[in-house]
């Protein structure tokens, strides 16, 4: 099995993954200390609701107390971005966790027992994979009513099949390995075999894929919010804030970038968050990928 020290050394050695780690830690810090960085105003119940400075429509540029300015409806961009970090982590971790669990459960069933069970599960995954994920997600969100919760559900629904397949594949490989054969030969129960021998070996590629996916999940969630299916107006969510900016892309004549802060800043947060995870995931992939050995 892989020695973690080696991995750690790689991650630090490679400037890309290092940059990734830096970015992620940065966001983790932001998420943890959000209440200190952008304190929730006195007497506001839900901290995820962005406080408003009046109700005017037109975005107002960065100024005292509003370092990033205020967007349409005078929502504080800075506050939104900071707390948006929390929502981002929330979405990503929840979705990934659920998806991985479903994937492991179904994937190992299919891969280990094969036969009808395998067929059925694989056909089901076909069903999901044969349909554009974004549209399917939209349909689901629209059905459940737009909210972060439904976004998460929708993402889980469209995401699990690929994991199920991945794990199934690995298990198909591993179950042929000698030691599994052996332990089967010794009459170990199939449950035991899966848990003791198969899963531990199948789990690594899954973890890598997961790390690669965290970025993708946040991106998709943002896309859904952007299409107006995700978080409600004024909820601390980057995608939703970008959607808000949508109406203010082009400033008036002679000053086309007047409302740049409303457009650029929330997008930047998404970009760098996803970037962090992708940088890390990419490095992971290189290290683990047995095909690209350590030449």
């Amino acid at each position, binding site marked *: 099995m892989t020695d973690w020290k*080696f991995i750690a*050394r*790689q991650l630090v*050695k490679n400037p890309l993954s290092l940059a990734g780690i830096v970015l992620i830690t940065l966001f983790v810090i932001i998420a943890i200390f959000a209440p200190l960085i952008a304190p929730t105003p006195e007497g506001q119940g839900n901290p995820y609701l962005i406080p408003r400075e009046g109700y005017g429509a037109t975005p107002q540029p960065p100024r005292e107390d509003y370092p990033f300015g205020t967007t349409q409806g005078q929502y504080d961009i800075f506050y939104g971005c900071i707390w948006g970090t929390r929502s981002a982590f929330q979405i990503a971790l929840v979705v990934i966790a659920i998806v991985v669990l479903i994937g492991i459960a179904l994937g190992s069933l299919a891969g280990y027992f094969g036969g009808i069970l395998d067929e059925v599960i694989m056909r089901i995954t076909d069903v999901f994979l044969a349909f554009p994920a974004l549209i399917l997600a939209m349909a689901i969100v629209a059905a459940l009513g737009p909210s972060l919760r439904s976004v998460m559900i929708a993402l889980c629904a469209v995401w699990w099949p690929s994991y199920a397949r991945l794990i199934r594949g690995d298990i198909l490989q591993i179950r042929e390995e000698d030691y599994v054969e052996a332990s089967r030969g010794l009459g170990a129960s199939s449950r035991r075999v899966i848990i003791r021998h198969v899963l531990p070996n199948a789990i690594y590629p899954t973890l890598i894929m997961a790390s690669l996916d965290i970025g993708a999940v946040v991106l998709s969630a943002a896309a859904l919010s952007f299409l107006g299916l995700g978080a409600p107006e004024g909820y601390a969510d980057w995608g939703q804030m970008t959607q808000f900016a949508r109406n203010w892309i082009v400033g008036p004549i002679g000053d086309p970038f007047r409302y740049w802060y409303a457009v650029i800043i929330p997008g930047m947060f998404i970009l760098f968050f996803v970037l962090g995870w992708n940088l890390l995931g990419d490095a992971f992939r290189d290290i683990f990928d047995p095909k690209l050995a*350590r*030449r």
Partner: protein
Amino acid sequence: MENVIKIKDLTVRFYTYEGVVYAIDDLDLDIRQGETLGIVGETGSGKTMTALAILRLIPHPGKIESGSIVFFDKRLGRELELLKLREDRMRSIRGNKISMVFQEPGSALNPVYTIGDQISEVFLLHRRQELASRARQQLDSLLSDGKGPATSMKKPFWRWQSRLYSKIAQDSNLLEPRLLGRLPLFRRLLWRLKHEAKLLTVDMLKDVEIPDAARVATQYPHQMSGGMKQRAVIAMALACSPDLLIADEPTTSLDVTIQAQMLELFRRIKVDKGASVLFITHNLGVAAEVCDRVAVMYAGRLCEVAAVEELFLHPLHPYTKALLEAVPMPGKELQTIPGVLADSFNPPPGCRFHPRCPSAMPICRQERAKLKEVSKDHMVACHLY
């Protein structure tokens, strides 16, 4: 008579993430004209690296640190320092004057091209002029005995072609043919080169005793048996009748009966091609069968070099002895070598074999033994002598 290859204190190192691997350490070795030199040793003892070093194909992140490899080019009649050669000159030697047969015929052949393509590639690369002149002869004969309206129509075209081919025959790097070779449609004009190459390929395949060669040439690797593949690989290696043929465990992956045939094949080739062979194996039995001389390697260093009988009758180096003991023979219980192969990251000081050596002495720990000639053509690197 000159040696084909003279290797002087060759050192190869790998700079991996885990650390530096001392793959080859101050290796001196000569290959004589027309002989078959065997290199014997456990896996990881640097046999293959030696071979790759000769071809300057040490894979990343390996590096040839120092030393020299001198190759005597028969046709030029002079010596070349391979390690100092320009890359393109080196390329013209690879597969042409020095060629190699790899251990795993399965992976040595590109799955997506036919055997024919892969072999004729060699001809097209190194024998372009020859192919061209053959093509010209073809055209000339067509021109001379071609009759009838159809042919007379084509004749001007043929003349032009034959002029073209003769140009290539003089110098394959002329501008015109090079251009033609690039242009999508005109490239087809050079089909005769390919055609000639195919013919040679088929002969080559016949040469390595492949039945129904013409058909095999059109087959893909996955359609052939392991033995056939290996023959094809050998054919590829011999295509340009090289001065030196490097065979890296050519038989290991084959089953015993095929092995025998292969060894037979090798012996024959050596006789009619007069090539020198560097035969790498971990199997002393095989070595005994094919080799004239044998060199024993351990952990990237040479332990002992001697003619076959000499080595088998009077092995001097403890490691050689141990190896021979380890060969299973009827009526004699098998002895194994204690300990494991030296760690290539931080090899033991002094003689690398000392940790496993039955007759190790204090000095073995400090100092590495030089390779010295103890009797005629019998060299050994051990403090005992």
